[in-house]
């Protein structure tokens, strides 16, 4: 019985480093480094830029204005309108997309032709948002648009135009043109929700479903008590993913309405685009961009908190 028990030798330098960075952390490093390089610098640059007023002519310097760019935003009617419209936009888009996505996923889950349906339903997501813009502007056009013709023929559309109507729907909601844009977005991205929710549904433990059936639970009860709680994290992922893209993409609006008519589709990201790339006021643009970024981050954190809290809530 030679020394089974040995004095543990001192770790080598290499091993010590390995210890400090656990294996799993090391795996994450490449991604973190790449992301840090590409995102940290622009982030600080953006903050720096937002504190200046950019010079228009050659030879002029950027002027440091402190928080003036931010203060002026409170006065900027287009900015405030943009924020209001942005909230409307993601609330409506997200609720419709989540509702439709979850419903469809639930409906086709386990169906005979499920695979076929999945392929077909996935198609709109594959279309570039800019092409969606052109496609819908072709469909909504008063002169030759089939959707316009259809909506008018069934009497659903009250106004004579879709994209040129700034009339608020039901008096307080955003304009008809706004809903036209929302419809295009819903068509384009609901498949993403379907895809993710369907994946989650497959993960619902069979034993729980069996148990529910044994207990004689009807389909609604099973849905409410078993299925939905199990896909909660999946819903969160889908919701946040969609939220992030919804408030960033302006491709569709750019083609369909360019923010009009009467600013009724000028959500904040679009106003940001105008400031930076039409007026070339990069300082102002950076200020708006920073605020938008904060807004998105806070909303995302809010969603995560809400969903995480529900999980902890006692059952029954």
């Amino acid at each position, binding site marked *: 019985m030679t020394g089974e028990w040995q004095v543990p030798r001192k770790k080598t330098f290499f091993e010590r480093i390995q210890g400090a960075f*656990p*294996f*799993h952390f090391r*795996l*994450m490093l*490449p*991604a973190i480094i790449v*992301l840090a390089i*590409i*995102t940290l610098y*622009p982030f600080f*640059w*953006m903050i720096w*830029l937002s504190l200046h007023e950019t010079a228009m002519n050659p030879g002029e310097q950027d002027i440091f204005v402190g928080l003036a760019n931010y203060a002026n935003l409170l006065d900027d009617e287009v900015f405030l309108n943009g924020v209001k419209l942005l909230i409307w936009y993601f609330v409506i888009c997200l609720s419709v997309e989540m509702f439709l996505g979850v*419903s469809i996923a639930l409906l086709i889950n386990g169906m005979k032709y499920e695979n076929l*349906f*999945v392929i*077909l*339903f*996935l198609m*709109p*997501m*594959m*279309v*570039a*948002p*800019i*092409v969606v813009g*052109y*496609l819908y502007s*072709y*469909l909504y056009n008063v002169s*030759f648009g*089939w959707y*316009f*013709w259809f909506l*008018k*023929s069934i009497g659903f559309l009250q106004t004579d135009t879709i994209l040129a109507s700034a009339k608020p729907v039901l008096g307080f909601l955003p304009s008809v043109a706004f809903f036209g844009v929302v419809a295009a977005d819903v*068509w384009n991205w609901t498949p993403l929700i379907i895809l993710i929710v369907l994946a989650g549904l*497959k*993960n619902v433990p069979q034993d729980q479903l069996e148990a529910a059936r044994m207990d004689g639970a009807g389909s609604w009860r099973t849905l409410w008590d078993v299925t939905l709680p199990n896909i909660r994290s999946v819903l969160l*992922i889908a919701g946040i*993913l969609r939220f*992030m893209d919804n*408030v*960033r993409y*302006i*491709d569709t609006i750019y*083609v369909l309405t360019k923010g009009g008519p009467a600013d009724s589709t000028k959500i904040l*990201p679009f106003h*940001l*685009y105008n400031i*930076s*790339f039409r007026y070339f006021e990069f300082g102002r643009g950076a200020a708006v*961009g920073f605020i*938008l*970024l904060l807004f*998105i981050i806070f909303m*995302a*954190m809010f969603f995560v908190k809400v969903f995480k809290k529900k999980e902890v809530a006692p059952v029954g």
Partner: protein
Amino acid sequence: MDKTELVSRSQKRKKKILGTLTYIAVIVFLIWTITPLFVMVVSSFKDLREAFQIPQVGDWKGVIKFFQFTPTTRHYVELFTMEDFRPFIINSLIASISASIIAVILGSLAAYGLARGRIPGEEHISFWIISCRMAPVVAVMVPLYSIFSGLGLLEAYRWRNLLCLMLAYTTFSLPFAVWFLRSFFEDIPTEIEEAAKVDGCSNFRAFWDIILPLAKPGIVAGFILCMILSWNDFIFASVLGQQGAKTLPVATSELHSTVDIKWGRILASGTMLCVPMLTLGLLIKKYLVQGLTMGAVRQ
């Protein structure tokens, strides 16, 4: 005995009605989904005046007008002869595929690390990663433009412009890949690695040889989603792509010329944009569906 029979029969009927309603709802949604694409594809084969024909409002019989036309492939031909779309397709492919590969490779490493590791501040890192994707595109573009310009990537060499696009696409593909794949890795039970380690595998080998193949469907699905997001991008390509790396979406937007909106070519280009993605989806259908049924494999 009779009562239960009656009850079960009415239950059966209820089930049947529900079943039919379900089918109807799905079919309606299907029609709504397919119609715009159908219109786009069919109209891309129409000559312009015919593409502008719609019936009067309320004239339902007029729907037949949609199908009354002489098909022409003129627009597609023009896309290649007059607009020279071939290099744009290549550019789109190169930029999206390379960005997606990087995103998926780095992303799966990071996702696994997040899924398994018990690192302090893990949730914060995870949130930071995904918040990289939250930055409004326009706000990020100006500093990115200046960085890339400083690196000389905006010089008019095709490969530099493509590299530039690839890096830009990675900024939003990588966070997405990490987040998406994390749940796939979390679903794989830790028992598998522990069994492997007992057998003498190192951490890395356990990951590389055993876990990765299990997660392959999820990785493939993630790759495809990254591909789609990059392929469809417009804003980054239009500003950062410069002339060397004009992608398909940018080229399509240019068809909206000043004097006439070349609807025919726009519709044809739109159709062409979708086809590769659709075929990709069809080819990898098996992996896509498998990726979706990852959980079922566990049983």
